[in-house]
């Protein structure tokens, strides 16, 4: 919540400083960098209860960095709550958000008020403000969506959560580490992981990789049957429920009586 509260000020600073910067899409030869994600493959089986992902980045010495993990964009149809008759809170309509990422994590090594952040292109989607711009006509409600997604554990902006833990493979690099917790409700799919470096009002994309979440075993079978053979799935669910109810009835075997 503290992070969210500080965001508006940070983004005002960012927007003021936009013109002063140069942008590069890859690190130059003088800036060796690396990005590793562990685990990069997460099976979603019946025992899956979310996963902790460790992020390691090697950036040129002196650089600030940000790692962004972003899921596939989807359209979200939601109910909007409001006051009716100045007293009652209830659903007052429906809203549609466009291009909402399934998950969004942004970990940075320094402050989000870093002037170098202002140099980033919009498509890099560094910060909630950039997401809101893509949401369509309902972007005014985006702070509420962020609040909801943060409560679910699917969105996080972790300022200063990338920590310098020594030097990288050579003396000219710094090793930054951080971790994030993917919630159990994170959807299956491929999440893009990108490393950005910021130095002297210059922003560069230093590396990219992915995390893949995939349903496996019984979870995969059930999802497949439920979506491809809904009628059969529903029929089996009913039969199992009726059999369970009858079996329990037999087990308890109540005596026959006249009732009250």
């Amino acid at each position, binding site marked *: 919540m503290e992070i969210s509260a500080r965001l508006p000020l940070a983004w005002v600073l960012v927007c003021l400083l936009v013109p002063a910067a140069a942008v590069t899409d890859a690190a130059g030869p003088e800036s060796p960098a690396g990005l590793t994600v562990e685990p990069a493959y997460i099976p*979603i*089986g*019946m*025992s*899956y*209860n*979310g996963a902790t992902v460790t992020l390691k980045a090697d950036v040129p010495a002196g650089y600030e960095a940000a790692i962004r993990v972003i899921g596939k964009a989807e359209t979200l*149809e*939601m*109910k*909007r*709550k*409001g006051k009716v*008759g100045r*007293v*009652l*809170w*209830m*659903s*007052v309509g*429906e*809203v549609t958000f466009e291009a909402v990422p399934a998950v969004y994590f942004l970990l940075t090594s320094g402050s989000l008020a870093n002037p170098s952040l202002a140099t980033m292109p919009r498509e890099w989607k560094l910060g909630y403000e950039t997401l809101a711009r893509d949401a369509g006509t309902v972007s005014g*409600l985006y702070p*509420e*969506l962020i*609040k*909801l997604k943060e*409560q*679910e554990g699917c969105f996080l902006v972790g300022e200063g959560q990338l920590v310098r833990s020594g030097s990288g493979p050579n003396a000219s690099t710094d090793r930054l580490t951080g971790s994030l917790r993917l919630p*159990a*409700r994170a959807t299956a799919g491929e999440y893009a992981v990108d490393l950005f470096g910021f130095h002297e009002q210059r922003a560069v994309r230093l590396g990219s990789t992915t995390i893949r979440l995939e349903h496996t075993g*019984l*979870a995969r079978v*059930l*999802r497949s049957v*439920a*979506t491809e053979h*809904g*009628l059969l*799935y*529903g*029929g089996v*669910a*009913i039969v*199992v*429920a*009726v059999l*369970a*109810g*009858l*079996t*329990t*009835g037999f087990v*308890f075997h*109540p005596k*026959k*009586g*006249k*009732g*009250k």
Partner: protein
Amino acid sequence: MDIYLPIAGSSASVPLLVGLGGLVGFLSGLFGVGGGFLLTPLLMMIGIPPTVAAASDANQIVAASTSGCYAHFREGNVDLKMGTVMLLSGLAGSTLGVQIIKLLRAIGEANFVITVVYVVMLGSIGSYMFYESLGALRGRKPRAGRPSLRPSIYRRLVEGLPLPVHFSRSKITLSVFVPIILGFFVGLLAAVMGVGGGFIMVPVMVYLLRMPMHLVVGTSLFQVLFTCMNVTLLQAYVNHTVDFILALLLLLGSVVGAQIGARAGRRLRADQLKILMSVVVLTVMVKMLLGLLQAPDVLLAYKGGH
């Protein structure tokens, strides 16, 4: 011990789900209600998406009501004739109710109308049941038993209807149109409110059909069973929102809870059952009212659920 729920796309504690199922099953066996009005919001609170919570809840109610209905049937406490008539008319009523919802939504203000009607109706039914049962427990004669100079308007209307039918199990004779009309309206209200309708059906059977309380619970469960079978099949086929694992864990608790509830019900007098039911109805009403008066933490919610 947590387990992943593949359709909900979330994980949850196994003992918690079994426990919640047990609690709702107990209420189901005791009062003849499905319990969806209680369980769906609880599931949403532990992170299950509303559409999956409502659909999977219907699936577990099939198990709980089978278990409860079986227990009551063994006791001879299910009026199959009355239950079948009201079930068929209830299905017709719920079909019309779905169309009314569409119309209200097109006009706007649907949610306001539905919610206010819901709260007022629950408050009225619950208060009346509570007052009447409390009076009976204190030894006051129920109004129905008092000699009255002239029958009520409702009684005169009911007695004036044609085609009288004897419901031998309930030991009542009334026009077949009475359960048809009442079943139709319960189905209609249940569809408009988005609930199974057990806790509307129970007061209707007690106060308007004058069925014996021990038959009301079993007969209501009989209807809830078929209504929820229909909902489960439709949700699985159309929306793919039934989470079988979630329903299985809930029903593990609910089938046992329903048996315990049915046994507990046999140890209670009709007025004691009624007063407990009225407390449940009033609790739901107060919960809804608080939900309407308190500012929500987030001004957005996912679509679906009750």
